[in-house]
């Protein structure tokens, strides 16, 4: 029994263990560079868009392996709109953010309607958007700027919300707020874990042993504090991290605790059976793509703020990054299986590989080759593990 449990835990967290090993590998290969505070910071700021987009992609994929190919191009298009509103038209950032969100909602509704109610296959409906929005966005940019790029460097408020740091301090100082946030987060994790176990015990349900709970808490706290200390040394908490954490927590709750979230899984597992259980399956499909569009809007905020400009190349291949993060994170390409935690691990793993190889000075072309191999290996591993189990 004990042995089984250990191997179960290992299997369940296989990707997480791979992530840690890969991180250690790159730390060794870069003689510790990978472990520097600046690179922890880079890992988050460079990959924030993947976490947000992959969350939306996860919801789409759960419904039956459906994907959204248009999100990368839509980032470019919406960025152009944002640039025009804020810089060319001199509109306030607040109003611009709301208008951009409106555009996203309109697109999401149209896309969701086509896919859920007109039965257009998702990859075709979104392929149309992939082509059209890249063109439209580029056209808008060249019509409003001679360089094909609109600068947002003057929009201090906008940049602060989406790419700044919370209570920023100079790099060589330790950021107290950051450490405090880490401690608070750790405390919350520990307290909620123990409280949920206490409820389970009180009501007489099966609960994990105190030992495993303790080990889990210690590991979680160690991870959180490691990040807190590293980020404190890099100038503080990046605002995007707050956005990412908020989104991840919200969607983790939706997928694991709500009826709507449950229906995303059952539709992916068997849409007919779900419909015959009284669920409006079309509405769920609609919501999947509306939600995707909204998360794409948030991605656009993050990306344009980070580059401080709207570019015609913005968002290139983002859709593929998001799909890859999901697949590496164990989200089923056929739908019905996968979770937010896995997706986060998958996205981080790809981010770590990217960063590690860049630090090692691996040629950008070869980086793509490695990523392709990792993606395939993850899926093969998943399918083989599944076969072994059954």
């Amino acid at each position, binding site marked *: 029994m004990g042995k089984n449990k250990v191997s179960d835990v290992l299997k369940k967290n296989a990707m997480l263990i791979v992530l840690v090993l890969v991180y250690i590998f790159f730390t060794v290969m870069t003689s510790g560079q990978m472990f520097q505070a600046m690179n922890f910071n880079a890992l988050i700021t460079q990959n924030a868009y993947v976490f947000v987009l992959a969350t939306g992609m996860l919801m789409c994929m759960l419904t039956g392996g459906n994907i959204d190919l248009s999100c990368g191009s839509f980032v470019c298009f919406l960025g152009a709109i944002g640039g025009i509103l804020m810089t060319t038209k001199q509109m306030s950032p607040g109003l611009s953010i709301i208008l951009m969100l409106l555009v996203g909602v309109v697109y999401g509704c149209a896309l969701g309607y086509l896919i859920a109610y007109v039965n257009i296959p998702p990859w075709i409906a979104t392929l149309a958007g992939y082509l059209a929005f890249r063109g439209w966005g580029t056209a808008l940019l060249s019509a409003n700027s001679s360089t094909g790029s609109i600068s947002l460097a003057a929009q201090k408020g906008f940049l602060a919300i989406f790419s700044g740091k919370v209570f920023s301090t100079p790099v060589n100082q330790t950021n107290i707020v950051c450490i405090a946030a880490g401690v608070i987060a750790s405390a919350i994790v520990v307290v909620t874990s123990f409280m949920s176990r206490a*409820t*389970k015990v009180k*009501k007489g*349900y099966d609960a994990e042993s105190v030992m495993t709970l303790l080990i889990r808490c210690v590991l979680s706290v160690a991870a959180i504090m490691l990040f807190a200390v590293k980020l404190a040394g890099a100038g503080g908490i990046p605002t995007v991290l707050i956005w990412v954490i908020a989104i991840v927590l919200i969607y983790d709750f939706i997928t694991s*605790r*709500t*009826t*709507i*979230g*449950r229906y995303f*899984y*059952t539709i992916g*597992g*068997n849409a*007919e*059976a*779900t*419909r*015959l*259980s*009284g*669920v*409006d399956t079309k509405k769920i499909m609609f919501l999947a793509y509306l939600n995707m569009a909204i998360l794409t809007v948030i991605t656009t905020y993050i990306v344009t703020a980070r580059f401080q400009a709207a570019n015609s190349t913005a968002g290139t291949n983002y859709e593929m990054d998001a799909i890859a993060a999901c697949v590496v994170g164990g989200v*089923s390409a056929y739908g*019905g*299986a996968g979770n937010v935690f896995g997706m986060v691990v998958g996205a981080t793993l790809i981010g770590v590989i990217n960063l590690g190889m860049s630090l090692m000075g691996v040629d950008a072309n070869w980086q793509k080759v490695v990523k392709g191999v990792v993606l395939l290996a993850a899926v093969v591993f998943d399918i083989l593990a599944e076969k072994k189990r*059954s």
Partner: protein
Amino acid sequence: MSDYILEMNHITKEFSGVKALDDVNLKVKKGEIHGLCGENGAGKSTLMNVLSGVYPYGTYSGDIVYKGETCKFKDLKESEAKGIVIIHQELALSPLLSVAENVFIGNEQTSMKGVIDWTATRKKAQEMLAKVGLEHEDVNVPVNSLGVGKQQLIEIAKAMAKKVDLLILDEPTAALNDEESKKLLDIMLELKNHGVTSIIISHKLNELEYVCDALTIIRDGHTIETLNKGVDEFTEDRVIKGMVGREMTNRYPVREGVELGKVIFEVNNWNVYHPDDGERQMIRNINISVRAGEVVGLAGLMGAGRTEFAMSLFGKSYGQKISGTVKINGQEVHLNSVKDAIDSKLAYVSEDRKTYGLVLIDDIKHNMTMAALRKFFSKKGVVNANDEIVSAEEYKKRINVKANSIEQTVGSLSGGNQQKVVLAKWMLTQPDVLILDEPTRGIDVGAKYEIYCVINDLAKAGKAVIVISSEMQEIIGTCDRVYVINEGEIAGELNKDEVSQEKIMQCIMAHNRKGGE
């Protein structure tokens, strides 16, 4: 030396311990048309799958002697190479490809390696069509532009193109009208004159009587008898007796002390049209009523329209232009969606648990709570996972789902246990009226008994239960009252004391004759 083209001796085939075929013998003479009949689930199709290599040699015991040699087919290809071709109930045509292409699917006419010779394809397709009486058809039109009857004939033409010696037809006329059926049967007689031996599986006994030289009756995986035309009595009544004449043992738990209450489920003047064809009426003026604590059966042959009727009731999940009224607990309800149906306390347990009932990759507890999640396991959209666990454990115990835990994936369970999970799923919606469509299809005898016990418990709890089953014994064994449905209409209503398999069959036959005129 022997005048038998095919001898299947002592065939026994088990599915996870359950014998689907038990020492079955089938002998077919060269050049005859041999009928195979029996109730649904008697083992006819299994026997044909053994013959054609769908179940490879080694997965069954007994031997097959074909044209004097013992055969050990590993797959369909090997049996086809020997000239044995099986045409299944479901058409295996590619709807958008042309008639000519379909005739030579998997058997393409090629000039060089892998290059299709279109001239030869069309010319030969025309020849094959002539053999099945379709010489005037254009071989270039897509096959779905033809009617079902002609498509069935094209299946036969396809078989002819493979140089067939033994043709097996599994319910070829199930989807055909009388005229089309007659034509198909005449083609079979024509082929017989050309030396083709055929085996035909059919429920339509008058057709078997018309076309067959010999008839083998299978019941519960055993061969009962073989009747020869001109030697034995060869009438419908005789065949029915052979098909149903088995002793009744206590395969059905007794239901005692159930007081029938008021009528709590009532359907009046129910009419439904085919979902793709607004002209074709599938259900015609059906009226039924069920009292609290009563178990009512819907008997009939496959394709009689019982499932269509049930699904059209269940939130209009089937058909179009639905009309009629439904009353539950005395109140008229309008069930426009499955959600309405569930909220009005109606539950429908589908005949096809894998396609319509379960999420196979998910676990037992999630499957059990799936339909009741919104009403009973959540508050403001947030799932109460602990309640789910408690209820799933309770039902697992109550209806004896054999599994390690409620976390086990449903896909890994046996058919019987999957069926129990589906039952639990619908019981958890706390319905007053349950429609159970083929509740014991494909599950073993022990699990069947347990399901019957659940049905009894439901009746005792004052629910109205409707059982749809193609196994007449099951209907007789479990129901207080039976409606016989045939071709979308009620062909008769029988009370517990008068119901018998012969009576049900007679209702169907009488209704068929009336419809034929």
